């Protein structure tokens, strides 16, 4: 290990004297680790939704509902208010100049613009 790295103390030691179970014992090398965790969404579905009474506050039911106001539409490229939507790319745009611009965009960029507001086409 380079002396600079050692001096900076940036690496975590593999064993710590204050631990009762060392990481190496917990996750032995060679044994396939696999994925030992699940996404939060799945964990929530598995745990709280079924076991908790619905009137008690829990992680899921304290979420805010959607806004009571209709969502405002903004131009995907410039951020200005967008009265129009391009029927081909589904991008929102503010004025004809932006329209010309988005018609020249390659498909990849169109999808990236859509992905910003979570509206991209996702193939599963």
């Amino acid at each position, binding site marked *: *290990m*380079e002396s*600079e*790295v050692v001096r*900076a*103390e*940036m*690496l*975590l030691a593999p064993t*710590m*004297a*204050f*631990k*009762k*179970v060392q*990481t190496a014992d*917990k996750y032995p090398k060679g044994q396939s680790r696999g994925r*030992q*965790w*699940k*996404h*939060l969404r799945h*964990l*929530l579905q*598995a*745990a*709280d939704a079924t076991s*908790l009474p619905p009137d*008690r*506050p*829990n*992680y899921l039911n*304290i*979420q*805010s*509902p*959607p*806004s*009571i*106001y209709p*969502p*405002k539409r*903004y131009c995907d490229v*410039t*951020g*200005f*208010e967008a009265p129009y939507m391009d*029927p*081909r790319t589904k991008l929102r745009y*503010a004025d004809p100049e932006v329209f*010309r611009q988005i*018609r*020249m965009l390659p498909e990849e*960029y169109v999808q*990236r613009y859509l*992905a*910003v*507001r*979570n*509206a991209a086409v996702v193939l599963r």
Partner: protein
Amino acid sequence: MSSLCRARRETDFARFPDSAPIVIDNGASTFRIGWAGEAEPRVSFRNIVQRPRHRSSGETVTVVGDTDPALMKYFDCTRTSIRSAFDDDVVYQFEYMEYILDYAFDRLGATSEVGHPILMTECECNPSFSRARMSELLFETYGVPSVAFGIDDVFSYKYNQKLGNCGEDGLAISCEFGTCHVVPFLKGQPVLGACCRTNVGGSHITDFLRQLLSLKYPYHVANFTWEKAEELKKEHCYIAADYMSELQIFKNNKEEAEEKTRYWQLPWVPPPRDEPPSEEELARKAAYKEKAGQRLRDMAAAKRSQKIADLEEKLSGLEDLMDHLDGADESQTTSILGRSGYLSQQEIKSDILKATQSLRKAKGESNGNEENADASGADKYPLVSVPDDMLTPEQLKEKKKQILLKTTTEGKLRAKQRRAEEAALREKQEEERRTENPELYFDELRARYLELSEKVDQRKRQKVNGNNNSSGAVGRGERLNAAQKERMRLLTTAAFDRGKGEDTFGMRDEDWLVYKKMSKENEEDDDGKDDDESELARIASKIQEVDPTFVNKHDAVEPAPDPHKVRPLTADDFKIAIGIERFRCPEVLFQPGMIGVDQAGIDEMVSISLRRLLEDESVKERLCQSILVTGGSSLFPGMIPRLESGIRQFRPYLAPLKLVRAADPILDAWRGAAAFAASSNFGKQTFTLADYREHGESLFHRHNIVYTL
């Protein structure tokens, strides 16, 4: 700066008695650890783990927190990324959490054991599995005697309550890293049933900024790292007092927008200027060119002489053959012919003719083609002048063909001649008119030119539809031009019977004309166009003769400027403008719909929280007079005024409203927790490993500490 220098290892761990609690603010962005009762956390670092491979030894190492980028050159990070134990605001990856706790306890100075009670912060209504796994980790891996969990926003509120910033009843608005929360307080305790959460936070703002910049400047994507975006966000982003009017400023008022725009100049080195080539170089190049040209010319000459020699040889051979044949009788002729591979003398003669012609061509002589054609006129059509009764039926057929050919070629020639004569005549007439009245003639020419050019233009417009923009992109949605439309109409109508009765199509000859119209290329149209264009060119040249300043616009338009011309890059291309993004990105806190999160923004969350609180209007009014704004994402300038105007919209007219920013929106949660852990009540609120074993998971459903300060 703090991100670059690593936390020093504390040395006074042994000085603390076993009962002294360790306080951990486990935030999604930053991890802070310290001792109960102290004013500042001892160690704080970014709550992330990286597991790169050491380049020289190849082993996987673990790095917690931010690192010096200069040292990362020793590690191969291509197959790993920066990991966090958090999803939104819930810890779900305990493998990473273990690395983080390892590092934290190590920095705090733990040597043989972590024998202290622990107070750890968590989010509102942390799912019980997360609590369970966290306490398992603390009990089993670190041997912690007892643990308590508390909500970070509540600690922040309580700490500010102690400082006198807010009252016993109030609201905490917290804008954190992964989420935003609103928590109401009654009699100093949080009402969890009435709190609410929107899954938008500082990380979303940073991500949004990064996405927007990399879409705006695709060439500089590599510069927009997460860290840089975070830095830009902290330094330049602000919250617009009124989003719509701020947008209008940027749309309509260029000077003011320019004033508000920030620029980030990327390092840029001008490319080396190419020197014009020196005299010597030019001479050298010219000499080289000359040499190469000479070589090619030599090669061509050699080839030509070779060809001539070949042809001459062949010709002499053939002439010899003919001489032989002339002097031979019947039987010898056939044998000679058989040997030479020719079928008849005729064939040899034609071969000789061909060879002489090509020889002449090769020698570059003018091969009197005209006389040849005239002379061969009789040869070409040999049967035409022979009377019918001397010919066999096949020859008769051949003769008919030849007559037809002859008449058509002659007709064509005559037509050509006539056209030439006509043109000459017209030319002459024009010349006469010109000499008679030059002004009138010139005007007439101009008028004709305008008329024709209008016609040509119109045809062009029809062909290239007006809707078709300069980009030239014609896609699915584009409109067809008039001619294409007519064709589509014909095609569709042809598919259906016009009358319900019998099909009369084809009764009249005109019916078939529809197919001509349907056919894709309307040749007639194209011909007309060509005529018009040539006429236009002729007139233009005539006008130019008279008026040298005249410019034929159809010529001028033709060489369109090349749109893909490579422009040398300048420093401006390396300048990143951050204008509208400055307030567009933080706006997601108020309008989560901008990044596709279908939840209410933080101003509306207050009204939702108040609605969930089943209390009188008077109580709600009291709460609204003590609203605390905390969390790292509340540090944007303009946050408080915007929140105030936003909340006012949901409150009755003239209802009192008071918002305060927390004393230190980032550290107050840890400070509140440290003060809480130092109080005498803390010991009663913790639970131990034995409690956990006895009650199991239900312990975590019940575990709610009473916040007292």
